[in-house]
């Protein structure tokens, strides 16, 4: 029943995804090039600062600091942008939801999808960096056939973002201040995920390592780096943990959204 409805509204899903991408870049001079420029510039800044602090300490796990950092930045940006947009999607579409019969989950879902598409485009920056270091033979990333496994962590990340997006969008209907709390949460998450640093650089604090291991974004990121940076088979423990976590979040989000959606209209 759910899938038939989604199939019936596939045009709406496509229209909103296209709209989100178009609107985001319409009013900027460089248009879609911002997808490339934004990660490129922020990475250069971060490499300049943190590469100076920690980057020279590149071991087996980091291999190449700029690429190590860029992987983390891109995945984290996708996570935070897509969940934040999904969170606001239902309240932002209040005018439609109040007047037209429409499946409401279309809004968080389409926001995650449109962010996923721009994220995939921005991966070209990563490919560019990889090629650059490959050609200059300056700590080149280890490109092996395992690199072809890179869609696996990305799909798990997509599931995670969709689940979180469903949870946040239904909560944001009832509690407007969840947005501010989530902003703070995302900032914490940025530092609790090894984006700028490698876990080993944290020292031997056990509690910190436990917290890190519990973070599904860490598992997903490590898998992605295994594929594209270290050229090794992704760690199955990370795979099972992050997949299980993401599916559980998706299930919880789906049930929460499904149960609360009929009451949205009374609050938005």
């Amino acid at each position, binding site marked *: 029943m759910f899938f038939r409805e989604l199939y019936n509204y596939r045009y709406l899903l*496509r229209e909103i995804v296209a709209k989100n991408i178009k609107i985001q870049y319409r009013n900027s001079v460089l248009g879609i090039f911002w997808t490339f420029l934004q990660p490129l510039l922020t990475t250069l800044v971060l490499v300049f600062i943190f590469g100076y602090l920690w980057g020279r300490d590149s071991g087996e796990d980091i291999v190449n600091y700029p690429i190590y950092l860029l992987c983390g930045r891109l995945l984290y940006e996708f996570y935070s942008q897509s969940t934040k947009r999904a969170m606001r999607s239902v309240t932002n579409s209040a005018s439609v939801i109040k*007047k037209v019969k429409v499946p409401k989950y279309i809004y968080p879902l389409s926001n995650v999808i449109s962010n996923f598409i721009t994220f995939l485009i921005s991966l070209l920056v990563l490919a560019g960096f990889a090629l650059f270091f490959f050609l200059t033979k300056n700590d080149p990333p280890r490109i092996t056939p395992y690199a072809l496994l890179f869609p696996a962590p990305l799909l798990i990340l997509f599931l995670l973002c969709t689940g979180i997006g469903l949870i946040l969008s239904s909560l944001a209907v009832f509690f407007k201040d969840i947005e501010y709390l989530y902003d703070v949460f995302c900032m914490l998450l940025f530092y609790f995920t090894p984006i700028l640093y490698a876990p080993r650089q944290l020292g031997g604090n056990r509690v910190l390592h436990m917290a890190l291991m519990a973070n599904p974004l860490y598992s997903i990121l490590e898998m992605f780096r295994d594929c594209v940076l270290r050229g090794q088979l992704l760690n199955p423990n990370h795979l099972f943990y992050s997949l299980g976590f993401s599916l559980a979040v998706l299930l919880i989000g789906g049930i929460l959204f499904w149960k609360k959606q009929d009451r949205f209209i009374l609050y938005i």
Partner: protein
Amino acid sequence: MEQPAILVEDVSMMFHMNNEKIDNLKEYVIRVLKRKMQYTEFWALRNVSFAVQPGERLGVLGFNGAGKSTLLKIIAGVMKPTKGKVEIRGVVAPLLELGAGFDMNYSGRENIFLYGATMGFSRSYVRQRYDEIIAFSELKDFIDAPVKNYSSGMRARLGFSIATAVEPEVLIVDEVLSVGDAKFKAKSEAKIKGMFDQGVTVLFVSHNTAQVRSLCNKAILLEKGGILAQGEVNQVCDIYDGMVKRK
């Protein structure tokens, strides 16, 4: 007997009326801790039942707060009733608030496809109707301008043109016959009358009994969420007019 086009069975709608609206987590936590979660129940509709046969035109009358809008929203599928159920057969075109599905940053052209998709129509289907929509809205010269630069009359014209281009079988109209200037108003009324002649089922909400008498053949009268009278249009309109005089 034919299956009714609109079947409303024992529909009730209850709202929680908080004395103060809680819309943030901070307030909510404070209230829960203080055990002060009080609601007053408000029944906007109580046990409303009626059926509209295909081709019938039903007028819905009632004073402000009688539950007309709630009823329309439930029939349009926007709200779920607390109790009871609604069944509808055929393609529904709700002319509730025209242009509600528009994106302000989008051009008129793009909004035609977006609005069409919101109503569940495919891109190719909307493309077939595209010229007709633009011709009817008389917005050919502005169709590539963003809708935020449109006047409210232009938006309503575009919304009306899209909503009526899809050949609906059930039309839900909420006093929108006054769209745009006098010229467009006449045109839109003619279009709606034309759809009436083709035998669409109509649900028409209005305060204007003269309009209801001329457009509808049946009517229901709502009062405080219940049906006060239902039946042939002139009888129900007479009761309503009588109530208006007494007030």
